[in-house]
């Protein structure tokens, strides 16, 4: 060896560790920023949900109209649907921070509450259809995963087509929410994904927008 250079191995290791820590820090800042955004959305959605429950009580006391309640439910569902979309993007991008799993769970609980609320008001208020999409968040089976991919697209198409009378609620069922498990027991679902229309029809096989519409008329 021309020079005693073997310390270079340790120097390189040290620099690599520093680069890595810096990369982690940048990544963590990005991811935390996104989680903060989602948390803000969630806090606002939580307020909307509480507002919805209050409105529900008012309808029961005959102090408010069904039309207003349905509209509020619809707006809330649309809002958390958009937020779910955003969250899905953030989940794909976030690799270090695992807080997103808890946020997922919180959103799924919120959607479950919305679904239960819709079931409650359905007897009193008409003029809307609930379309609940039950899927699995951690799906490894490729056939089911492909099924889920296409189902979600079909439902977005349905929502775009029928916007005003559809309340679309996608809920992941593998998030250990006991109220959800209890609520879906009556549908006797064997495997996911499924779509439940107006709490009556359970669609297990992937169906076109046009065919789903036949259940809505």
């Amino acid at each position, binding site marked *: 060896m*021309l020079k005693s250079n073997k310390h270079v191995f340790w120097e390189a290791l040290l620099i*690599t560790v520093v*680069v890595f820590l810096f990369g982690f820090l940048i990544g963590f800042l990005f991811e935390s920023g996104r989680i903060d955004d989602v948390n803000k959305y969630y806090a606002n959605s939580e307020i909307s949900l509480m507002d919805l429950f209050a409105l529900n009580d008012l309808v029961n006391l005959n102090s408010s109209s069904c039309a207003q309640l349905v509209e509020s439910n619809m707006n809330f569902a649309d809002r958390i649907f958009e937020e779910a979309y955003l969250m899905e993007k953030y989940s794909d*991008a976030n*690799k270090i921070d695992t807080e997103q799993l808890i946020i997922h769970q919180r959103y799924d609980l919120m959607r479950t509450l919305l679904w239960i609320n819709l079931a409650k008001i359905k007897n009193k208020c008409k003029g809307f259809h609930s379309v609940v999409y039950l899927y699995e968040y951690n799906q490894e089976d490729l056939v089911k995963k492909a099924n889920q991919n296409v189902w979600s697209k079909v439902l977005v*198409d349905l929502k775009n087509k029928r916007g005003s009378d559809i309340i679309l609620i996608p809920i992941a069922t593998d998030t250990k929410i006991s109220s959800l498990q209890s609520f879906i027991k009556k549908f006797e679902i064997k495997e996911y994904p499924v779509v439940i229309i107006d709490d009556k029809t359970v669609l297990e096989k992937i169906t076109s927008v046009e065919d789903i519409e036949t259940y809505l008329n």
Partner: protein
Amino acid sequence: MDLLTQTYLFYSFSSIYFLTLFLLIYFQNKKEMFEIKKPKKELSLSIVIPCYNEGDSIGETIQRLLNSDYKNLKKIIVVDDCSKDNSYEIIKKIAKKNPKVFACQTPKNTGCAAGAKNYGARFVKTELIGFSDGDSFPEKSAISNMVGFFNDPKVGAVTSRVLVRNRNKFIERLQAVEYKVIAFTRKLLGFVDGIYVTNGPLSIYPKKIFDEVRGFDDRNLTEDIEITWNIVSRGYLVHMSLSSLVYTVVPSNLKTWFRQRIRWNVGGLQTINKYKGKWFKCGMLGSFILPFFSFSWILAIFGILVLIYRLIRTIILRTLSMSYSTKVNTALLTMKEINLSPNALLFFGIATLLMGIFFTLLALNYSKEKEFKKQGVLLILNYTFIYLLLYPVILITSIYKYLRGYKSW
């Protein structure tokens, strides 16, 4: 953090570590990159050239060596390995005219360069023994720039810088880039006693050490790698002279290129297997060369398997999704799906890519060849994103062939 993310991080860490290591070695030693040592004594030297069907080039190879400015080059021993062309006639003709050139022929074709090299080595009586290839062309000063390294009695081998001579076809130009990067990297490894191969086109060994390691292993497809490991395992040092230029002819089509790379990689595997008991023993062989070589293989193979697994899963998923979406007449990809959110993995990916490109540019700039200016960005991009990506195919094929006992030269 999922397993895939952990794997990606591990790969990023390894890549950044090795690139940092090379860049550090470079910045710490850049003044000595082209160092030439003046020989304390002009040691006597013989060069052995194995030749098999190299009638087109052998004459020029001999002439180039005859033109060498090293005064104590005693003999050029050209060993014809029972060529089917007119190589032997050409060699004999030159030998007749020039007493420095000695022509000989193996009793029967040895089937490998090592066989012919060992055969030629029998006739060497000088202090140093060098080897060149029948299609390689050393520059006038190549040998004289190498000999000074033998001032240190611990030096067991000195190797040269090989560059590509034929650069007309696209594949040849890509190899020209590759050879420059290889030469630059090898020189850097020399600063940490990590040179793992003394190339075939021009390498020199003290005859005593060459005899001590019993010459080249003719059962190994890359005898030049094996002999280097053998020399290092005995505590000798190996150097590279960046100022010693040798031009060689590289494969001109994909088929011959592929065959050559398979041979190199199978030979590499044979060498790892032969020295598997030397881990953390025998100085830099066990503590760096063997782990570095083996680690590169493990990393490459594991990476390929992960990539194939991911690719197959993605293809199956896309195909199934397509078939379902066709059934229900819905569009699968919308603008909404495009996700450009940055994350830590992106940072590491960009860092590795930039460091890799910087290292390649540095290596090319160091070749100090006029041709570099003509290479252009496109060639470098093709080298980085196409040429290097062909390697997984070679590695997988090499493992398969190695396991099947591939021995063809």
